């Protein structure tokens, strides 16, 4: 059974058909990258999977369960985590607290422990988060407020927050955008490492076709909300619809 299987997914905003009849499967531990010009519906697809948007048609099965029937916060509990195209960090919290919030669903949440300062649970999750901080090399920023961190660090902190949830499916929306060439390489290497170490399936949206194709097992191309190609990276990059969308400036 596929980890994630999307069927017949369609969503429209007023007159804009943002996605039409999308079908997609992601196997566990697979990296699927989604490419497509601006406005082709990539972020909308992520928003449907994480239950921010409610599509008019279609099914999104995760381990066979329909995510569309769940409240937004329950999708996280099933093991889906994501980052955002325009960062959505908790700007006034430290990097450490952002990552700890990523552990929210793993906490044994007893309000009395909070009130009486019983900190066993906090220490347990702090250990897990410190390992992540090591892995992502965020030590220097541990207690820095996110709003005081450089953009590159913020991007990695957001990745860390998603990883803290121990996702089965990790969705990364343009993880390279806004980064310098050097930082891009670091993040590409990190994604590779994440796959080896935490073994999630990864859905990745990327503009940079070269980066997207080096990381992908499977590639999906969206144009104006329609899936125009899916398959191995070279096949997708050479598909006539993809070529015309990127070169023809559709």
């Amino acid at each position, binding site marked *: 059974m596929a980890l994630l299987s999307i069927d017949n997914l369609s969503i429209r905003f007023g007159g804009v058909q943002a996605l039409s009849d999308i079908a997609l499967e992601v196997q566990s531990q697979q990296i699927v990258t989604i490419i497509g010009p601006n406005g082709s519906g990539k972020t909308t697809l992520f928003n449907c999977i994480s239950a921010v948007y409610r599509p008019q048609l279609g099914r999104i099965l995760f381990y066979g369960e329909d995510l569309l029937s769940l409240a937004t916060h329950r999708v996280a509990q099933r093991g889906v985590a994501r980052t955002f195209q325009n960062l959505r960090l908790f700007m006034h919290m430290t990097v450490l607290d952002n990552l700890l*919030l990523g552990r*929210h669903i793993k906490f044994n949440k007893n309000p009395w422990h909070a009130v009486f300062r019983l900190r066993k649970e906090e220490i347990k999750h702090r250990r897990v988060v410190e390992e992540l901080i090591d892995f992502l090399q965020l030590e220097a920023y541990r207690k820095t407020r996110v709003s005081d961190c450089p953009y590159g660090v913020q991007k990695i902190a957001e990745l860390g927050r998603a990883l803290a949830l121990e996702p089965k499916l990790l969705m990364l929306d343009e993880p390279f955008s806004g980064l310098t060439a050097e930082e891009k390489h670091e993040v590409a290497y990190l994604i590779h490492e994440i796959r080896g170490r935490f073994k999630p399936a990864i859905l990745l949206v990327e503009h940079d076709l070269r980066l997207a194709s080096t990381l992908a097992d499977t590639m999906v191309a969206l144009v104006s909300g329609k899936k125009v190609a899916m398959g191995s990276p070279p096949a997708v990059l050479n598909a006539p619809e993809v070529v015309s969308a990127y070169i023809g400036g559709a």
Partner: protein
Amino acid sequence: MDLIESYAQDLQLMRKTWTKVWVMGVIVTLAMLPWFASEHAVYLATLVAMYTIGVQGQNLLIGYTGQISFGQAGFLCVGAYSFGHLSRMGVPWPLALPAAGLITALFGVVVGFPSLRLKGPYLAVATLGFGIAVYQIFVNSTLLSGGRMGLAVTKLSPLWGLSSVNLSYYLNFGVALLFTLATYNIVSSYLGRAFVAIRDNDIAAEIMGVDLARYKLLVFAVSSFYLGVQAGLYALLLGYLEPNMFTFSETITFLVAGIVGGLASVEGAMLGAAFVVVVPFVFSGLKQAVPALFGTAVILVLLFEPGGLAGCWAKTRAYFRQWPFR
């Protein structure tokens, strides 16, 4: 040199020896206040301690969770009258006090429901409606409000050789200390993180698995509990209640305390409470000037130090920590 050897150590309430020393110093000084201060000063300190409780509660809701509420006076009214009626039914104050808190918390949950749909100014208006409705209901119901003479509440009687002024002081000081400790503990736990996450980015919080409805209602309940307990102490201290004690201007006093003290800061709540108690006292001969002073203070804070008194305090400490290397 600040060396941390374990995560448990990093999670202590007070980590540095120096902090422990001066905080203990302050607490001991406050505990001995009746020995060296005038009765009037002790009474003022009683009010500061009492207001600390409610402002702390308001701060959890507005400062930490970002749910702007104008319902403080309404919650105080519910809490004070709950305490008053319970006490008239013969419930001893040590029971009536938490009960008043719990009843107010229940109202907090109900008032919190609009927060599941409304944000910012819209939520503020909805909670304002609650405050006004409570006032109107009490003004128009002699059964609830105790009528023209107000509702008489039995005051604390002297105990263990302590005068009633000193006894009230110790009661309010002790309860304020408990609530302040609880607040420190809450904001540094998973609960506090969930609250701040909702304030900073509710969509991200929800996607990370935070159940927005649950935590919003919880923070409304907790903050109303604080307000209810403060109101119970208020009834116990004054010995009588009338609806006019709970008009919108009481809400404004709380908001001034929150903003001038500094939002999302436990120390800020204490400093803000002290501000709104001490300023009217200092200017007691010039009552008309107090609202203008409050307004000016809020504007100055918003313009020059959004962190409020707590922000000034933090900057001063940072300055001395790094002195003379600056």
